[in-house]
């Protein structure tokens, strides 16, 4: 009865969240006195998961799974869980994992808790802490079923190297008729997505217009960051909806969040609450964001941001 963990990859490369969910699964396995089995689909270097605590990897190689399909992937994980007799299945909070997890939970007759932020406080009863009310609170939630599915919030547990090795076994599950066919994928390959970003640079209405986003993009580039925006900015059409961060947009759980010209409405702050370090740059010292931030600069973004870009470039050059 090992702990099963689904490790995502993209074009064969294991994602950082895959290493995080394995680290997390290892913590649960230690609590329950068992081992971790990972299931990976069309991933190279699956044995590298051993370093994060997997004892075994079930490696699925199948061209029919080259494009993500929630029903097919859920079926793969379900069959792996049943083969391993897994009582706990761990998945990440990526868009794909959140898509498949409810299907997986129904298939396994398992209770499912998403947005989990810590290792279980107890494994019998099985209680995990999850964020609720868009990060304005947490709920300690008990899963009462025999088999449990846990969705780990991205960047909440971190990577833990344990220096182990994993055996890799081929795994050939049967695939269901999927019913949903991917026709095309439109994805910027040269940009970091908000979900995967360690640093997010976000702009608000204080930037006065879409033509002023050049400096936001330059700052993001210097930092290797993703760009985001506040709700009014996306509603005005200055930036795409996919960049809208907040309660009705995307949650951000980056290590660093830099808010420029964003006043900090309660809905926005909720969405970025699980970011670890927050910096605000705003002309108005009374802006609510200053109460939520770790570091603040009171000043005009049009003066501060270009200067900050220069300082960061110098810093990068020095530390390269």
């Amino acid at each position, binding site marked *: 009865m090992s702990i099963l963990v689904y490790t995502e990859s993209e074009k064969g490369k294991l994602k950082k969240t895959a290493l995080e969910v394995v680290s997390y699964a290892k913590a649960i396995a230690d609590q329950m006195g068992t081992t971790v089995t990972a299931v990976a689909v069309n991933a190279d270097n699956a044995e590298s998961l051993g370093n994060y605590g997997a004892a075994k990897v079930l490696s699925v190689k199948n061209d029919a799974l080259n494009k993500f399909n929630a029903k097919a992937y859920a079926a793969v994980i379900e069959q792996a869980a049943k083969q391993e007799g897994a009582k706990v299945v761990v998945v990440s909070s990526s868009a794909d994992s959140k898509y498949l997890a*409810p*299907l997986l939970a129904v298939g396994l007759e398992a209770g499912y808790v998403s947005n989990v932020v810590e290792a279980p406080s107890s494994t019998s009863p099985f209680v995990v802490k999850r964020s609720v009310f868009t990060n304005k609170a947490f709920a300690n939630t008990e899963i009462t079923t025999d088999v449990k599915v846990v969705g780990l919030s991205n960047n909440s547990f971190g990577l833990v190297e344990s220096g182990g090795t994993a055996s890799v076994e081929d795994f050939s599950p049967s695939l269901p008729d999927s019913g949903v066919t991917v*026709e095309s994928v439109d994805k910027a390959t040269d940009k970091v997505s908000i979900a995967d970003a360690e640093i997010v640079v976000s702009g608000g209405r204080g930037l006065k217009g879409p033509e002023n986003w050049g400096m936001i993009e330059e700052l993001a580039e210097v930092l290797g960051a993703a760009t985001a925006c506040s709700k009014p900015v996306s509603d005005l059409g200055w930036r795409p909806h996919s960049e809208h961060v907040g309660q009705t947009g995307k949650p951000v759980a980056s290590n660093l969040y830099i808010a420029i010209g964003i006043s900090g409405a309660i809905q926005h702050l909720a969405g970025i609450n699980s970011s670890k370090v927050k910096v605000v740059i705003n002309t108005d010292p009374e802006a609510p964001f200053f*109460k939520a931030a770790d*570091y*603040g600069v009171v*000043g005009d973004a049009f003066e501060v941001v270009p200067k900050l870009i220069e300082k960061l470039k110098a810093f990068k050059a020095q530390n390269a």
Partner: protein
Amino acid sequence: MKILVCISHVPDTTSKINFTEGDSKFDTNGVQYVINPNDEFGLTRAMWFKEKQGASVDVVNVGGAETEPTLRKALAIGADNAIRVNTPATDGFSVAKQLAKVVKDGGYDLVIAGRESIDYNGGMVPGMLASMIDANFVANCINLEVDGTNAKAVREIDGGKETVSTSLPLVIAGQKGLVEESDLRIPNMRGIMMARKKPLKVVEPTDVTAETKAVSFEKPAPKGAVKLVDADNLDELVNLLHNEAKVI
């Protein structure tokens, strides 16, 4: 086409979040309730199907009598009928089970739910429901076209979007993009008057045992005061981010 739109009754986004009874219950004192924003985008898209393609649109909520004003608002926006399953919404699984029965009894072709409710953010009801009724399912749906029994949908993925083809019966988990913010409708007086006369059927729940339960709630630890850095001394900010926060 028969469409069912699932409506969550949630605290307004500006609500202060507090808990009572030894941090075991959400404090509803002074809280205004609204249609879950993700559901409202879906409802508005359903109105488009009604007006352009002659679809019928019913709305459903799983909850106590206190959620009826929210269902009435959905009727005022233009839904034809409302259904309330008379049981508290305990966990995602049990809500999905209740909805599965409503979908089967009503013979719906398309179920539009929100990506997640803005209160408990579970994001699991639409997928569970689709799985229970063996319907196709598209998550994070930002565009949907239906032609006969064929559907084309766009799903937001991390860092982009993908276009999929699928067919009815279909469940989608919708969000902003399905319609624009500016397309959302504020009920007018005529809509509100008509909504009073539209049927709101209360059905008794099926027997379901929840799979998860919230044992207790807590709020994030209060954070320390912001450290202000002078706009003329940005070296200090870089230094703090590098040496103190260790994020660059």
